[in-house]
């Protein structure tokens, strides 16, 4: 008697799933932008901010009259699912976006593992994919539908490290630390090579587990090498702050770098005064004259939502939407393959101001990387200050 129950409930369950598989909201004049981002766990805030920025850009464009292509007018709509930062969930999200919601454009994917899972399906079904993930292996001619919406170490590190080394010509040695996650494993080799190219001796390059809350021993270890520069690579600002504080406690004084540091606030919160002087490669300055009033307004809204400043990851989700709009109108088509072919040749207005395009032939063998300005920032008197900017 149990068996039929098994069946009925099983069937009912599958039916309920199929019920929402057929999405009535699939009106022709809406272009859905799928987002695969972490909405839970330690990276939840990045995901929330990314969704926020995608929606902002979409709203602006829709209010400004939408996208005009192939004689029709379309509106953007952002659909976000939680990829929990791992491949299994990334696949679920990919299936849901592409095969259930029939999304043809991915407005952004965050987290290398879930992005790879998404790419496996997207490239096969000709779905255009934007991602902030750094994996070099994500790009290249074999992935014609994939585009990167954020600067990666290959873009950031040469100018950043170059600048730092120039400012501190006496510094000749460095010790590096990275989190044992995808970003860390992507950043470390590039940074190492760049330092060596600049004639800096790399004493040590360590990894630590994300989720560590006690950094004294780790700090003691890197300090014991007595390097002139300590580069905590893609360590999240909160951890970085704690590490610099511990280093400061042990009396280590030297040049501090947090390559992918995104903001002064979190760094200050955990690092206190030890955050002073840290160089960052992914920081965005929201006070001072470098930003427009509108950007500041967006950032203030974001702060209300997230409790911290916007960072380059989230801004990438904003830029991708404008890139797509421009490409669609230039190609005069909303067909993903056509749009992907057009993207490399267009320039579009970026959040950072001005118009930018795509590049990357020499690094990735294919034009898939947004050519964004590179901002070298530093914490000065507790404020994040832009010390160097390279515009494309």
């Amino acid at each position, binding site marked *: 008697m149990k068996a039929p129950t098994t069946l009925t409930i099983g069937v009912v369950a599958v039916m309920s799933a199929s019920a929402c598989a057929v999405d009535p909201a699939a009106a022709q004049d809406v272009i859905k932008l799928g987002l695969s981002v972490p909405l839970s766990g330690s990276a939840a805030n990045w995901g929330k901010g990314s969704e926020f920025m995608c929606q902002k850009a979409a709203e602006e464009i829709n209010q400004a009259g939408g996208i005009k292509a192939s004689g029709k007018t379309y509106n953007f709509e952002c659909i976000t699912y939680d990829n929990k930062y791992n491949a299994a969930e990334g696949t679920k999200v990919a299936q849901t976006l592409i095969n259930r919601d029939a999304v043809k454009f991915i407005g952004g994917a965050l987290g290398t593992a879930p992005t790879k899972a998404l790419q496996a399906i997207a490239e096969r079904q000709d779905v255009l994919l934007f991602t902030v993930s750094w994996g070099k292996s994500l790009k290249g001619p074999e992935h014609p539908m994939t585009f990167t919406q954020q600067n990666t170490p290959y873009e950031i590190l040469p100018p950043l490290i170059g600048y730092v080394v120039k400012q501190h010509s006496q510094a000749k040695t460095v010790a590096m630390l990275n989190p044992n996650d995808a970003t860390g494993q992507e950043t470390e080799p590039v940074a190492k090579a760049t330092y060596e190219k600049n004639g800096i001796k790399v004493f040590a390059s360590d990894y*630590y587990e994300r989720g*560590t809350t006690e950094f004294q*021993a780790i700090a003691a270890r890197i300090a014991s090498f007595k390097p002139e520069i300590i580069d905590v690579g893609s360590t999240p600002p*909160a951890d970085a702050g704690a590490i610099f504080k511990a280093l400061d406690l042990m009396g280590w004084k030297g040049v501090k770098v947090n390559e992918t540091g995104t903001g002064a606030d979190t760094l200050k*919160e*955990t690092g206190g005064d030890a955050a002073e002087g840290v160089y960052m490669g992914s920081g965005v300055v929201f006070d001072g004259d470098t930003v427009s009033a509108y950007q500041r307004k967006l950032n203030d809204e974001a702060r209300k939502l*997230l409790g*911290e400043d916007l960072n380059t990851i989230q801004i990438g989700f904003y830029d991708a939407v404008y890139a797509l709009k421009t490409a669609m109108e230039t190609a005069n088509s909303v067909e993903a393959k056509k749009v992907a072919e057009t993207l490399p040749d267009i320039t579009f207005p970026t959040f950072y101001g001005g118009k930018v395009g795509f590049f990357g032939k020499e690094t990735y063998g294919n034009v898939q990387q947004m050519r964004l300005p590179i901002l070298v920032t530093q914490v000065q008197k507790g404020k994040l200050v832009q010390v160097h900017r390279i515009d494309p």
Partner: protein
Amino acid sequence: MQTAVQLMATALQIGAVYILFSLGLTLVFGVMRIVNFVHGQVFATAALTVAYALPTIAAAGLPPLAAYCVAAPVGVIAALVLSVAIYTFGFRYFQRDEIGSFILSIGLVLVLDGVLLKVFGGAVHRVPEVITGVVSSFGATVTLQSLVLCVVALLLATGLYLMLGHTKLGKVLRAVSIDHEAAMMVGIPYGKVAFGGFLIASLLAALAGVLIAPMSIVSPVIGTDYLIKGFIVVIIGGLGSIPGAILAGLFVATVETLGAFYLDSSYATIATFALVIAVLLVRPKGFLGRG
């Protein structure tokens, strides 16, 4: 020498928190035979509440220390309210059911993870430094704050130890954890005792939470991190053993510190897990576990 002292100081500091955290776990298991995964969430609730309340209170113009003295009790109370709810609606029905209670607590962990994220948001919360200044001796330096943490933690640990040894409640708790049937035969109200033990355990977690808040990186996931460490400690020390938890707490902290210093610290993480399995090979019930 300097590094040696520095490392000792670090190990002591981490160990102090592990001890506080694990004492609760081991106490609950001793008294109720419950493997309480929710302990981490109780701990996180306290830490998050402080991290959330303190800046707000401080904004009212109070100096950090004063503000902390207001926020800390709030955090403890929040955590205790949570654990009372957990006990009355959950664990009460699963006493001495090792598997059932474990399954229930796993479920609660999943639920509370979601809740904490909703309530406190994903952003890292940071409590402004409550006690400023550093202490240096033998060339090693620790912040006054972490020193205070150590002292308080160790005081609490000894306090609990003495309480179990000498007060009536303590004796009752011990009696129950050694042989609850015998204890009930001599007329000990098991239900009351169990609830008492659970509250004390939660209180320890809450205190650990509010103590760690000013010097750690407080986010909703902090609970899981300490939970895993905490269980490693109690397994090594022996479930239900108070001295076991204290010794193992220091032991694990030392291994971690040395590991992080001499190895790449992500290997240290694996090393600690390997350690557990090794210990259980030699002593399937932990170092001081009761046969």
